[in-house]
């Protein structure tokens, strides 16, 4: 998790990895990235010297604002040129879904910049668990025909000189499932770290108002 602040604006961003199946679920080969933004308190404060008033911001407007920010974040972070390389578990079968969730704890302006700062920080710290492809091969029927105990008898199976189920050399092509080699291992860093973007917002102040300010001085 990463916690970013910008004066009065505070954003908390966190990433979570989920396993997705390409055949039965929404998985995409190579993994995918999904972002979401939500508010903690009911919306931005438009006037700093007055307590928060949202009489002009209904819950619909708030949902729209939330959606706008989500879209900005989503379309930038999930751009193909930034896509991390190590989100595949088993090619064409299982991949990681990277969920990036941001919560705006306080908004005193320029939430977009803070969002990207938080997102970058969270993605930088993300570690992808290491996986190992696993496949189990049942022994062929003809070889266990003579067994009284049937195919479930482990001892007889080992005596049969077939290819070992643990031979991983050819496995990547035919692997059906995966396992985590080390429970305590945090994993490897999410690739593409140096490419995550930082956002700077430029606001155009009208020239007429600048002239008024100068004249007053």
């Amino acid at each position: 998790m990463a916690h970013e602040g910008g004066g009065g604006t505070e954003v908390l961003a966190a990433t979570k990895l989920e396993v997705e199946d390409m055949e039965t679920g929404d998985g995409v080969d190579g993994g995918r990235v999904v972002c979401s933004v939500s508010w903690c308190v009911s919306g931005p404060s438009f006037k700093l010297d007055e307590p928060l008033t949202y009489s002009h911001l209904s819950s619909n407007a708030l949902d729209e604002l939330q959606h706008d920010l989500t879209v900005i974040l989503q379309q930038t972070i999930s751009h193909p040129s930034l896509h991390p390389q190590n989100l595949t578990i088993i090619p064409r079968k299982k991949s990681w879904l990277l969920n990036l969730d941001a919560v705006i704890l306080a908004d005193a302006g320029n939430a977009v910049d803070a969002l990207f700062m938080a997102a970058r920080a969270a993605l930088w710290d993300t570690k992808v668990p290491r996986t190992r492809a696993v496949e189990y091969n049942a022994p062929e029927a003809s070889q266990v025909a003579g067994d009284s105990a049937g195919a479930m008898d482990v001892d007889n199976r080992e005596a049969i000189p077939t290819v070992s189920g643990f031979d991983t050399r050819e496995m990547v092509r035919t692997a059906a499932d995966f396992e985590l080699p080390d429970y305590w291992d945090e994993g490897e860093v999410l690739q593409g770290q140096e490419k995550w973007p930082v956002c700077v917002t430029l606001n155009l102040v009208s020239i007429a108002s600048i002239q008024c300010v100068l004249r007053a001085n």
Partner: protein
Amino acid sequence: MSSRIEILNDGGFRSDGRKQYELRDITIDLSQQGTADGSAIITHGLTQVMVSVFGPREAKMRSQTLHDRAVLNVEINVAPFSTGDRRKRSRADRRILELAASIESTFEPVVQTSLYPRSQIDIYVQVLQQDGGLLQACINATTLALVTAGVPLLDFVCAVSGGVYSTQPLLDLTTLEENDLPNLTVAVMPRTQKVTLVTMETRLHVDRFRDIFELACQAGQTIHKEMKRAVKDRTVALVGAMDTGAKHSSVDPDAMMEDR
């Protein structure tokens, strides 16, 4: 992995290494968040909840105000990354609405609302991490946030969750324990020993109820001590900051250094 995790083993230890009546580590952070009038972040073990309080202030909609008291408005936002499975809950989720209603009814008799007619006190709860004892953490954080906001209360409200493992009562349950055991949450006002909330969603034999209920009330006293300590530390820090400011303006710089 097929081995079941033991809720309470023969040595009297639970799955996270605690003893039967041991509460999880509590950390309280009362620093200001955003523009809130009062805010608190409380952590019970791995459960972390942040509450911001705004008010008493003019209500959003005049039609919802009461002529003689303030209205409490509780809104909860659960972060999608707060649980083990990431799940995005909408604001109108039934469980969340129920949680909000519980919090509101807990504080309704405790906040001195009659002092602020026609106004509204907004309580925004943000759940950052969940590992069991969510209602407990929300209530404790709300109490602290109301205290830091300066809203007059009759007393602190201290909440604790508890459960029963066969015949043995346990306190302060984690998610693992909550899923397996009948559990309840009790909120007490420590000075008067009055209970403002008892809630249970599972089934528990009535003979077991008394033990866990009394135990939970006692545990409320322990939590009260922690909360009082945190509030006192914060107040001392604030008063110290105010004093330093006063000294700066009235005493000349050379004399000021000697004060320290």
